[in-house]
């Protein structure tokens, strides 16, 4: 090697050394930044999880107690004289004096209670709706007439609140409970005739002014009907619109305009759809107010953009080679879509639909506008019966003064969250199961 090339080699080596040392110097700082970045990511996720945990803990701690209800055991005699009936049939039972039977049972239990005021306080131990339970029992078992049996009846909500506050560490909440009443309660509890049992009323009754009688059944059924109407309308319309826009529509200004409008509609505040429903469905078409049919129509309008957008995305994701192969075989356009594209796009469409339904389930504002804010006691039997939905029920209970409604509001929120989580889990499971690789 000549001198010139030798020195050139040295120069190259020196340069390499400089380069390497510079890289080394920077290395520490780069690793540090890497760790910082990862830390930020973990912190973000941690924050999210923390928020969810706080939310769930708050709701569950407030609502868990609503799933048990204080009940009192009574020795009830179905005395025909007291009931003022001579036979067991529907008409007589409607007028029968079951309250009298309950009061007789209470008097028997506490024979020392005298005086009108004290007696009234005694009778207030039991829920005012307990009579209906007895009527049901007698109607189902007519042979009980004249017999005595032991039944568990719901206690009044004041008693319930007092008993539940006893189990908490801070001072028992007396409220409207006098010392005397507290004495009776504690006595009954000691004798095992007052217990907290599973609150079936919560799941079997509709709304009521009395908290111990209040349940979510009417709201759940109303929600179910509304969701069914929404699904039955929005899924076919949304999928058909997506198929037309994606496969058949020409690409011109009009279709661009339609696409922009659909994207915009997905972002419109939901209460606007409620106003629309009020103006068109209730005022113009004179549909029944507060019915799941109208609620479903309003929610359909609301979820349609979501379903169209997600359906289009899943149609786009079908590879064009499949379409070409089908067309090359001589399939007509409709056959290409029905036989090949739709089955492959269906998982995405279903996922989008379930997510849209989960959104619709939690909607309150548009349904308030069409009147589903009413106080509905009866469980609806059809889509045109007046009804309410679960989020609205929660909203109404949150406004009620009785303490017992506080825990019931949280319990209803728990039920709503459970349904939503189930639906979203179904969506994820469905998507995983139907995923096809091609």
């Amino acid at each position, binding site marked *: 090697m000549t001198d010139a090339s030798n020195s050139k080699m040295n120069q190259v080596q020196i340069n390499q050394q400089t380069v390497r040392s510079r890289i080394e110097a920077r290395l520490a700082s780069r690793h540090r930044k890497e760790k910082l970045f990862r830390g930020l990511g973990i912190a973000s996720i941690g924050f999210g999880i923390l928020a969810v945990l706080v939310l769930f803990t708050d709701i569950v701690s407030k609502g868990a107690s609503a799933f048990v209800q204080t009940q009192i055991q009574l020795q009830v005699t179905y005395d025909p004289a007291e009931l003022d009936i001579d036979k067991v049939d529907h008409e007589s039972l409607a007028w029968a004096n079951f309250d009298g039977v309950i009061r007789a049972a209470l008097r028997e239990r506490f024979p020392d209670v005298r005086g009108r005021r004290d007696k009234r306080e005694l009778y207030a131990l039991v829920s005012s709706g307990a009579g209906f339970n007895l009527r049901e029992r007698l109607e189902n078992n007519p042979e009980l007439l004249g017999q005595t049996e032991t039944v568990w009846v719901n206690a009044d909500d004041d008693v319930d609140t007092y008993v539940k506050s006893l189990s908490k560490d801070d001072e028992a909440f007396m409220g409207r409970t006098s010392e005397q009443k507290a004495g009776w309660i504690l006595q009954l509890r000691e004798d095992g005739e007052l217990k907290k049992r599973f609150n079936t009323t919560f799941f079997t009754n509709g709304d009521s002014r009395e908290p111990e009688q209040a349940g979510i059944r009417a709201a759940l059924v109303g929600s179910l009907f509304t969701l069914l109407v929404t699904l039955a309308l929005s899924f076919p319309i949304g999928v058909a619109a997506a198929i037309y826009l994606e496969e058949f529509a020409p*690409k011109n200004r009009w279709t661009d305009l339609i696409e922009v409008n659909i994207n915009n509609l997905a972002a419109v505040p939901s209460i606007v759809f409620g106003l629309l429903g009020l103006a068109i469905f209730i005022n113009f078409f004179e549909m029944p107010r507060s019915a799941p049919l109208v609620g479903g129509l309003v929610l359909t309008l609301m979820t349609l953009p979501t379903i169209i957008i997600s359906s289009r995305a899943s149609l786009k994701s079908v590879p064009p*080679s*499949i*379409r*070409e*192969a*089908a*067309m*090359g*075989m*001589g*399939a*007509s356009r409709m*056959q290409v879509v029905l*036989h*090949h594209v739709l089955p*492959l796009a269906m998982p995405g469409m279903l996922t989008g639909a379930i997510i849209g339904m989960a959104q619709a389930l939690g909607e309150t504002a548009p349904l308030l506008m069409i009147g589903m804010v009413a106080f509905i006691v009866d469980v609806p039997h059809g889509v045109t019966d007046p009804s309410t939905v679960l989020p609205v029920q929660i909203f109404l209970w949150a406004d009620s003064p009785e303490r017992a409604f506080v825990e019931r509001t949280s319990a209803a929120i728990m039920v709503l969250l459970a349904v939503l989580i189930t639906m979203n889990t179904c969506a994820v499971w469905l998507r995983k199961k139907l995923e*096809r*690789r*091609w």
Partner: protein
Amino acid sequence: MTTMTLNVGPAVAAGTETAEQESVKTNAEIVKTVGQPFSDDAKLKMRNVNVFYGEAQAIHNVSLDIGRNEVVAMIGPSGCGKSTFLRCLNRMNDTIEGCRVEGELTLDDEPIYGPKVDVVPLRARVGMVFQKPNPFPKSIYDNVAYGPKIHGIASRRAELDEIVENSLRRAGLWNEVKDRLDKPGTGLSGGQQQRLCIARAIAVSPEVILMDEPCSALDPIATARIEELIDELRENYTIAIVTHSMQQAARVSQRTAYFHLGKLVEVNDTETVFTNPEHELTEAYITGRFG
């Protein structure tokens, strides 16, 4: 088929072309197709075909005949319009936005284009095999049976079974898949998938099979099997094949058409094209001076 050693030279590097080659390449005045573009007993006749993608013209005034039970290979450099031309024959260009086809194309003297022509039975008569194997994500049986079912060729199970077996046998795939007809078609190897696509195409008893670079995604052994297959299929079908590989064109075809920048430069017997081409552009291409 004679084996020929072709002097496939390196791609032309900048600055090493002669002035003559430059003028040849940019010369847009290829007025007439040399050789024998027409035949006596033509299955497909194309006259004065022009294809436009929007404003840009992709095919300039091409006229060609494809004879009965003949294999015609279309060769040419990338972007010369051979795939576009092939897709005109079964109207697959209809699916492309902004694509306009002018000219007279006939199949057995019946027009292919025209407002009254139904494209669905046309595609049953002119089948297509694509560059990348694209079996349906269904079972092997359903893949082959799809065509007969939708065209109403057979509906009963026994008839369909027969058609499926015949098609798979003709495609040379029967022995490999007869025990797993209900398995998904996408689970096969690349070469098997392409043969499945060929079986699918012949299940509807077409008259013409168009093949758009059918072996470019396959390994040499699978390629060899498919070339064997093309030779066997020639007995019953007319085949037009687009290929990038000149060796393949030399092996499988009887006539070869050379395209250049959307024009048909030369059409001749395969042997003539590869040993004694008439046009200088053809010679330049096959000797590897460009392409």
